[in-house]
Structures are given as C-alpha cells and as structure tokens.
C-alpha cells in the first residue's frame, strides 16, 4: 500500500479516516494527562507522586505529537483544544472520569487498563501508511512500556492487601465498561477505511479482543471479578453492545465530568480573551 505522503493529496475519505484516527489518539492522551495531574502533590508518597507526574508529562507530550500531526491537516491548536466544542472531543470516557479523593486504586487500575490497550494500538500503528504516524510511534512506545510496568507493579501490590483489593474491585466495576469504549468504532464505514487504507493495520474489534485476552486473565489472576463477562469460551473474547456504558466518548457523548473539565482547562484562555495559543517549543520533527 502506497504511503499517504502529502496531506494535500488526500481525498475526502482518506482525510476523514486520518482525522478520526488522530483525534482519538490525541484526545485520549490529552485528557488522561489532565486527570493524572490531579495527583500532583496528592499521591501517597513523594516517589509515587513523581512517577505519576512523569507519566502525565509523557502523555501530554504524546498528545502534543498527535495534535501536531492534525495541524498538518490544517487545524490549529486553539481549534483542536481551546475553542473546540467539548462534544466534539473523541476520547474514550475511561480517561475523562474524575478521581475520588484518595482513590489511588482507580489511578493505577485505570492506568493499567489504558496502557495495556495503548500498547496494542501503537503496535498496530507501527507500519502506518501515514509516515508521520509511523515515525512517532517508536518514541511513544519507549515511554509507554514503562507506564504499563509501573501500573502493573502498583496493581499487584494493592491487590495483596484487603483494603487495596476491595478498592481495586470497586474501581474495576466502575471503569471496566468505560475501558471497553476504547475499542468502540462508532462509524463502521470510517473504521473500515482506517484499516483498508492501512493507517492502522488491525481493526478495533481485533484490538479489543486481543486486549481482553490479556487483561481478563491478568485481573482474574489477582482474584478481581469483571462486572461483565466478555469471555465466549477458553480463548475467545467479545465486546457486545450491552456491555458498553451509555456515554462512550468516541461518538461525542460524554459524562458531565468532561464538560466541567473542559471548562476548567479552557478557563484562562477565555478569561484573557485569547484567540491563539503560545508555542514555546520548536515544532516536533
């Protein structure tokens, strides 16, 4: 499949597919980073504080890389974030849910569910026909490896204690349906185009099943129970419509928490009456 080199040469279908894929990538990372920063100066120890802050910084850096690719398609940062209608964001609802104060179990479990999915998603983008995507995947992967390890260490550690286990279970009950939305295609035609154009070389359905085949046995090995049963038989997993939450993010429907978060993060921009954003770093290569 030929590379889709020049953004100007893309036809409408190619462009829409690319835009959809990139917005999901960028919005997921951006909103997750926003939530992670809530833990700064609030984590259980200075060390865990620094570790999660560092992950937040990484995710934000990845969001910047993906938004930058969208800028090649003619968007500007303010249109992508500060002036964008909150209902136009396409992140999964998993990343927008607020943390209850002190619920470190939610933070590390959410991180695990997300990072395990992120690993698979990035793998499927390694050979993307859009060269800039393929180029950036490598850099991102090197950081994500550490995130997954960090999350797993914490999940395992908490699962050993009675309170930790109970809190992980509560977090799983709440988060799992939202995690499934990571694989929600919304528009089957667009999803088909993304795979057919080889922007991504696995379908969301395949990625979702693969993700389930990893996280389900892992969580069960920690004696955590899934709130829904996506297991069809020994090694077949499936996400069905009724497992999904009402708000899915990918289709632009969001929980109330997202409107509040968006309002907060655009507050200064609006308050100062800005009409553009400041770049202080050089455009990423």
């Amino acid at each position, binding site marked *: 499949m030929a590379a889709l080199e020049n953004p100007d040469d893309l036809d409408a279908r190619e462009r829409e597919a690319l835009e959809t894929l990139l917005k999901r990538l960028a919005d997921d990372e951006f909103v997750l980073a926003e939530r992670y920063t809530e833990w700064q*100066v609030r984590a259980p120890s200075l060390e865990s504080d620094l570790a999660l802050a560092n992950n937040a910084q990484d995710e*934000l850096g990845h969001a910047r890389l993906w938004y930058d690719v969208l800028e090649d398609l003619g968007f500007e940062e303010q249109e992508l974030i500060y002036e964008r209608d909150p209902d136009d964001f396409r992140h999964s609802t998993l990343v927008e849910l607020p943390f209850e104060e002190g619920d470190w179990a939610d933070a590390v479990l959410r991180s695990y569910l997300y990072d395990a999915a992120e690993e698979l998603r990035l793998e499927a983008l390694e050979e993307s026909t859009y060269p800039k995507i393929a180029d950036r995947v490598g850099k991102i992967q090197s950081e994500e490896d550490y995130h997954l390890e960090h999350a797993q260490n914490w999940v395992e550690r908490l699962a050993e204690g009675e309170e930790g286990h109970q*809190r992980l279970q509560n977090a799983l009950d709440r988060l799992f349906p939202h995690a499934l939305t990571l694989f929600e295609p919304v528009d089957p035609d667009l999803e088909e185009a993304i795979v057919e154009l080889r922007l991504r070389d696995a379908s969301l359905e395949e990625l979702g099943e693969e993700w389930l085949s990893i996280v389900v046995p892992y969580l069960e090995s920690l004696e955590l129970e899934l709130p829904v049963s996506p297991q069809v038989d020994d090694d077949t997993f499936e996400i069905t419509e009724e497992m999904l939450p009402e708000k899915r993010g990918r289709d632009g429907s969001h929980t109330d928490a997202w409107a509040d978060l968006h309002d907060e993060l655009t507050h200064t921009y609006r308050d100062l009456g800005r009409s553009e954003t400041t*770049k202080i770093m050089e455009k990423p290569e």
Partner: protein
Amino acid sequence: MNVDAVTKRAGPREFSPADDLPREYREAATRMIEFHANSEIMGAYLERPFIRQAPSIDRKLAFSAKVQDEIGHGQLLYRAAESLGVKTREEMLDDLANGDGKFLNCFHYPLKSWVDVPMISFFVDGAAMRRQATLRRTSWEPYAHAMDKVCFEEGFHVKHGEDILKELMTGSRKERQMTQEAFEEWWPRIIQFFGPTDDKSTHHDFAASVGLKQQSNDQLRDAFLDQYIPKARKHGLEIPDEPRIRERDDGTYAVEEGDLDWDEFFTIAKNDYEPGLGQINGRKHAQDAVQWVRDTIENDATTAGGHAPQAAD
C-alpha cells in the same frame, strides 16, 4: 565538636554526616532545610491547578515539568535535612500536614488566576534563586550539594516565568491591566520573602556564625531589588508607591520597611493566616485520603521482608 570548634572551622561545604556536630548546629540546619523543603511542597501544591489552566499545550508541559521539579527538590532537601539526624522525613511531612511545619510567606496566599502565575514563577522564584545561589556555599555539604541541582532547574523556571510575564505584558490591554493588578497585590509579599530586617531576625546570628547562612536578609533583599526593579519596569510594570522604595546615591534600592505589614507576616510565620491555613489543611486532607496506601505499603514491607519504597533519584 562543640559550637566554638564549628564556628572556627565553618566554611563552604565544610561539614558532612561524617562530622560529629553539636546539637545546636544540627537543629539550626534542620530548621533551615526543612523550611526550604516544605516551601517546595507548598509551592507545588499552590501551582498544580495551573497546569490545567495554562492556556496552551506548551505552557502546560513547561508548567507541569516545573511542579514535578519542585516535588523532586522537596525530596532532595528532605534527604539533606534527614542526614542531620534530628528529624525523619516522615516527621517533617507529618509536621507540615499538622500545621507545625513552616514555609515561605508567599505560599500562604492563594493563586487565583493565570496572571498570578508569573508573580510566583518569575518574582518569587527569582528571589529564591538569589538566596539559593548563596546557599551553594553553605557549610552543610548535603544542603550545598542539593542546591547545585535546585539552582540549575530553578533557572529554567524563572526563564519560563519571565516568558509568561512578557507575553501577558505585551498582550491585550485587559491582560496588561490584570497583570499590573496582580503585581501590586504581590509586590509587598515578594519583598517580605527575605524576611524581617536583620535586627528583627531571630535565627540569623547563629546560622551565619556556623556558615549555614551566607548572606543576611537585608543584603539579599537589597540585591533582589537592584536586580528586579529594573526587570519589572522593563516589562512595563509600574512599581507601586507603597512600600516606599528609596534609590541610594549609587543607584541601588532600599525599601522602607515600616510600610510593610509585619503583623500579617508574623501571623503567617505562625501558620495562623487564612488562606495559608486552608492550604495547609487542604494538603493534609489529600494526604490523609491516601493514608491507606502508605499503610498497605508498610504492611507489605514488614511482611515481605522489606521492599519499602526506595527514593527514586
């Protein structure tokens, strides 16, 4: 060593954990470094919401790196303080939560909006830089060593703070006005950063005589004014009429100290000032909420023969 011997030997980076130091020295050094470490944490606590409110991705990244650096500085400084053998890090963090730990006056005030941000990250951090640069020659070697790293990173923060200020002061009329108002509110507090005049300072003499403190409050404050009044003006800020600032014949500046509110300063110093008290309690509340995690880790460490969290460095 007794205090006389310490005074005689006192010099830059002269003492390390290998030295047998008198209680007076160790307590004075602990008080000073603990104050510094607490200030890093409470500064970060205050600034954290502005990672979210930063008006661009690049600003957000720079600001989030700054908050992270400050937690790192806190970590480093608590270790330098702990090495004096007077208090453990746990005790210092508990004291901070309970309202017994002391920290910088400026971090007892609320940070209300983005225009307040450069008041901290340019002026207060700039003031801190001045003091910290002199502390690279403090007599407690672990403290001086920590200052090398802190000063290096702080340089970036101040530069970013100045860039935020410059952007605001070259922005719309509304932005310039809001920034000037913030400056007027913060200016006296920033001057008080250096503490009371030398003859009112309680701890100075001993700390200076054993080489912990390198310059007096007055020297530091005057040097700051000499450097930052021109900078503030360069960015278009007007220096408020009060506190009155006198220009000496040689072009240096001195502040009329009677114009500053020292009652407020000493209320703050006792941790009795709102909203500082609210900020202390807010942090305590957040720390209490994750007590269960620390308990889990501790149980873990004792039952599994100890994989207590190691300091990441």
